[in-house]
């Protein structure tokens, strides 16, 4: 055989029996933080997601991420998350290269990711490699499984409010595989027997479907086609005896599709080329038929992305790993479409559409300078075009690691990020009413710079690791609604006027800084981690809070997560999580004064209530109220029973918030009941705390085959 070029040679082996001495295999696939240049990164094992106790047994990727330092949840039960002082829209969530715009079901109580179908989860909080861009605060990279090319296998999970099924296997053994998984709630079906038929029908459900096909053309060429479809729907239909009827629907959801070709040029050069489609849509419709008159109202908003990207990985020698690539995305935004049909007034059909282009090129190198020093320099150039406006930005990236000892390294990083699309949110809890909008000639891109410094220590013999990081991040041109504005205030439905969303937002600056520590054990019967975050997050807008600096809503000073998974045998899994977080900031009126009628000559219609003593509540400081500290303990146990032919049955029991802590969801101020005896009764306003999710047990059954 002449070896003058790369050859592929298939060698067939004849089976023969051989008696060997005992062989001990020690596998270690856990990441050693001291060996990696990249900092501010966390990888989650999908199997851990299955073991950690979850609300109503709905295993959730994003809820698991919230248990890591630097990644904080929003409101109680919400899957929205805030990374190092950022906001939910500053997190780039990608599923097989496709951007997912709204990652929430049921107002954030559950995420859209079905844990059964996930192969890997990687979260970047800082030190972003140049291949990532477009968001300021984090990148959550989720990859789906490719499917089992050797045998058909699957899983069925039945829970309290939803069930899921997964099936994967070969289409062409060894060459082509598929994986399909689906999930649907059935709360609406279960509730039907309890609803009076005369009240009509109504309910809520959500569903997900993941589908992927993976094919190997040759050792040098592989292709996959990965798809996601998800929907949430509230609906209500009523028909009355007199023939009148009304119908209301609220629907939202995502669609993503990625077609990716992986090509190996030679043993040093690889490429991935992807064609990607991503969609998010939110729609509200109301229809009344009353006395033969019809009223129909529909509003919708959405975003469509069409992307093409190519990435190259080049390994010139053992000391360099070079990556380069180019990406182009066409964004089609529809921030608002209103359709109104009414017998008593003119019909209204208005639509806002924003089309824009976003592109980037990047180059990065993971360079092992010496045995102790590693550098990862990178650069990304991004371009955004909206009509006649162009934004061109240079984004330098740098990460470095120095091994003081083989198991101890010092790390530092710098990254500059730009974000060209924004989420208008008045609640921060991931409502479907949140609007995605584009940078325009009036709304500049958001930018950030982040410096981070850290230490990583591995205890090889015990398989522990400790990382300690400090960060400082500045944010520019971040946007927020002006005071008194929200998406509900944007339109005057009676006149059909549509106020431009740009007139209702304002831009400002932000600062976020803090420290995180993560102590992790990744192998053995007992695994888990302890994370602690100390952080500050501030904002300043000229048009908010009278131009003064203020603490951001999700400025949580302390955040602690303790996660433990104990597997004494392959028949039991015990798990527990304990979390503590200091309160969010809210704006509540803390003062009241007398109304002063007649003090200004131009009168306005006063909405003030007749109140016994006409007073007006007010405050002079935004986010003046810090809520109470939240903490809870979740417990879980799983009973495994392995059966023949690789089948397994698992019963799971869990309790969410097991000591029934009444953690705050929102606060309100309401008038209390009169106190005392007539004619000397008094009444005072009270601060009320609304808590949800107090002591929620659940059970689920899983069957694997």
């Amino acid at each position, binding site marked *: 055989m002449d070896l003058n070029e790369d050859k592929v040679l298939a060698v067939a082996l004849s089976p023969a029996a051989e008696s060997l001495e005992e062989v001990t295999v020690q596998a270690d696939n856990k990441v050693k933080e001291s060996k990696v240049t990249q900092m501010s990164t966390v990888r989650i094992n999908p199997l851990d997601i299955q073991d950690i106790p979850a609300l109503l047994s709905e295993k959730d990727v994003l809820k698991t991420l919230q248990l890591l330092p630097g990644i904080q949840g929003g409101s109680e039960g919400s899957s929205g998350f805030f990374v190092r002082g950022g906001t939910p829209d500053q997190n780039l969530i990608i599923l097989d290269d496709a951007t997912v715009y709204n990652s929430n079901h049921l107002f954030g109580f559950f995420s859209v990711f079905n844990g059964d179908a996930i192969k890997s989860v990687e979260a970047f909080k800082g030190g972003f490699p140049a291949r990532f861009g477009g968001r300021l605060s984090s990148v959550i990279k989720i990859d789906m499984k490719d499917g089992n090319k050797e045998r058909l296998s699957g899983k069925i999970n039945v829970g309290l409010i939803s069930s899921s099924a997964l099936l994967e296997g070969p289409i062409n053994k060894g060459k082509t595989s598929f994986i399909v998984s689906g999930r649907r709630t059935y709360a609406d079906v279960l509730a039907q027997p309890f609803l009076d038929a005369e009240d009509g029908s109504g309910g809520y459900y959500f569903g997900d479907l993941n589908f992927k096909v993976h094919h190997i053309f040759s050792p040098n060429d592989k292709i996959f086609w990965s798809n996601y479809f998800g929907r949430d729907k509230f609906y209500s239909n009523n028909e009355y005896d007199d023939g009148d009827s009304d119908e209301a629907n609220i629907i939202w959801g995502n669609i993503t599709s990625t077609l990716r070709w992986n090509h190996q040029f030679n043993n040093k050069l690889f490429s991935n080329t992807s064609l990607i489609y991503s969609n998010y849509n939110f729609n509200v419709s109301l229809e009344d038929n009353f006395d033969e008159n019809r009223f129909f109202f529909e509003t919708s908003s959405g975003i469509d992305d069409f992307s093409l990207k190519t990435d190259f990985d080049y390994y010139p020698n053992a000391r360099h790993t070079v990556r380069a690539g180019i990406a182009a995305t066409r964004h089609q935004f529809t921030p608002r479409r209103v359709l109104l049909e009414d017998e*008593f007034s003119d019909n209204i059909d208005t639509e806002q559409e924003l089309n824009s282009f976003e592109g980037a090129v990047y180059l990065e190198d993971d360079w092992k300078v010496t045995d102790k020093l590693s550098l990862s320099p990178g650069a990304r150039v991004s371009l955004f075009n909206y009509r006649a406006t162009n934004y061109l930005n240079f984004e330098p990236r740098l990460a470095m690691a120095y091994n003081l000892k083989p198991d101890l390294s010092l790390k530092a990083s710098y990254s500059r990020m730009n974000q060209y699309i924004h989420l208008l949110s*008045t*609640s921060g809890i991931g*409502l479907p*009413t949140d609007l995605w909008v584009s940078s325009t000639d009036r709304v500049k891109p958001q930018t950030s710079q982040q410096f981070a410094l850290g230490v990583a220590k591995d205890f090889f013999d015990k398989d522990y690791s400790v990382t300690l990081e400090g960060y400082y991040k500045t944010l520019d041109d971040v946007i927020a*609604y002006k*005071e*008194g504005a*929200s*998406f*509900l205030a944007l339109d005057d439905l009676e006149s059909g006027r549509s106020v431009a969303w740009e007139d209702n937002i304002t831009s400002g600056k932000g600062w976020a800084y803090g420290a995180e520590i993560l102590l992790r054990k990744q192998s053995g019967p007992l695994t888990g981690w302890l994370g602690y975050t100390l952080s500050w997050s501030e904002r300043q807008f000229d048009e908010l*809070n*009278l131009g003064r600096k203020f603490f951001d809503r999700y400025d949580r000073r302390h955040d602690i997560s303790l996660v433990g998974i104990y597997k004494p045998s392959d028949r039991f899994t015990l798990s527990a999580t304990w979390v503590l977080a200091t*309160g969010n900031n809210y*704006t*509540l*009126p*803390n*003062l*009241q*004064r*007398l109304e*002063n009628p007649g*003090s*200004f*000559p*131009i009168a*306005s*219609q006063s*909405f003030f209530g007749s109140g*016994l*003593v006409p*007073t*007006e509540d*007010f*405050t*002079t400081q*935004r986010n*003046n*109220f810090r809520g*109470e500290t939240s903490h809870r303990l979740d417990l879980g146990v799983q009973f495994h029973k392995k059966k023949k032919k690789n089948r397994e049955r698992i019963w799971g029991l869990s309790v969410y918030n097991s000591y029934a802590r*009444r953690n705050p*969801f929102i606060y309100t*101020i309401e008038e*209390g009941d009169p106190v005392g005896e*007539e*004619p*000397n*009764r*008094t*009444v*005072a*306003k*009270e*601060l009320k*705390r*609304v*808590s*949800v999710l*107090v002591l929620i047990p659940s059970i689920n059954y899983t069957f694997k085959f």
Partner: protein
Amino acid sequence: MIRHLTFFLFLGWCSIGCIDTVDPDELLDVGEKTYIQSYLSPSDTVITVYVSKALPAVGTPLSFDNPESGFESFVIEDAQVVISDESENEILLPYDTETLSYRVDATEFPIREEADYFLNVSVNGRNYSASCSIPKKVSELTGTFTERPSGDGFSEVELNVAFDDLAGESNFYIVGAQVLVEQEEESFSFPLDFELDRFVSDANADGLTLGASTLYGFVDSNQEQEAVSLTLQVANVGEDLFQNLRTSYLNDFNDGNPFVEYSIAPNNIVGEDGVGVFAGYQLTEQEITYNPNDI
């Protein structure tokens, strides 16, 4: 039946939240403050300063059976209130029990355009101060009416009030109008509501024509209509006054809407635990006549 009921209760238990009353002491600033508000204008016949208590919104018991005693909880009757000008002329304002304010006739201390004024208030040994300038007056107002058919023979009438911005500086305006109704035995007027449009500023429009619109009403196109007199009003106000009125309007309008952030009240009172607004304004009024038959 019992199984269904148990299931329903279980679902309810999962979904319904708990509501508890919380002691605000360590969570919310519940200290009492002194509230001071005064708007000065050359067109006013009386100079008025309101000095009262700003009590904690939460936990302050007010009378349920006797509202007058509730007022007393807020009143400050023994403050010393002095207004002075750039030439150090000053006047002491006495307390008026009828209006619960400190006031003096404007003839005793004329307020002049583009002049600076200073307020000093002493309450229980605490001193508060503030200053303001009196802005210029808008010269001329224009009112135009636009009719649009609204069905069944009626027309919707919109009033637009327009004026020229005073160029070269940041300006804030409040727009309004009063409709005069003359009847045989008496006459009265009522204000038109410009809603949020009443708050106009010259941001990105310095020196241009500004304005605000509102729905005047509906007229029957098939019938002869009587002419109506209106008084158009535009006040050029200090920014703190503008924000104060706008904040009150927004918070009241959005009351109960969980999607809207609470608006922040301005404060230009200097002194510990002092809050409020001391500002100046100039009012321009113009009478016009609306004759529906002419449109």
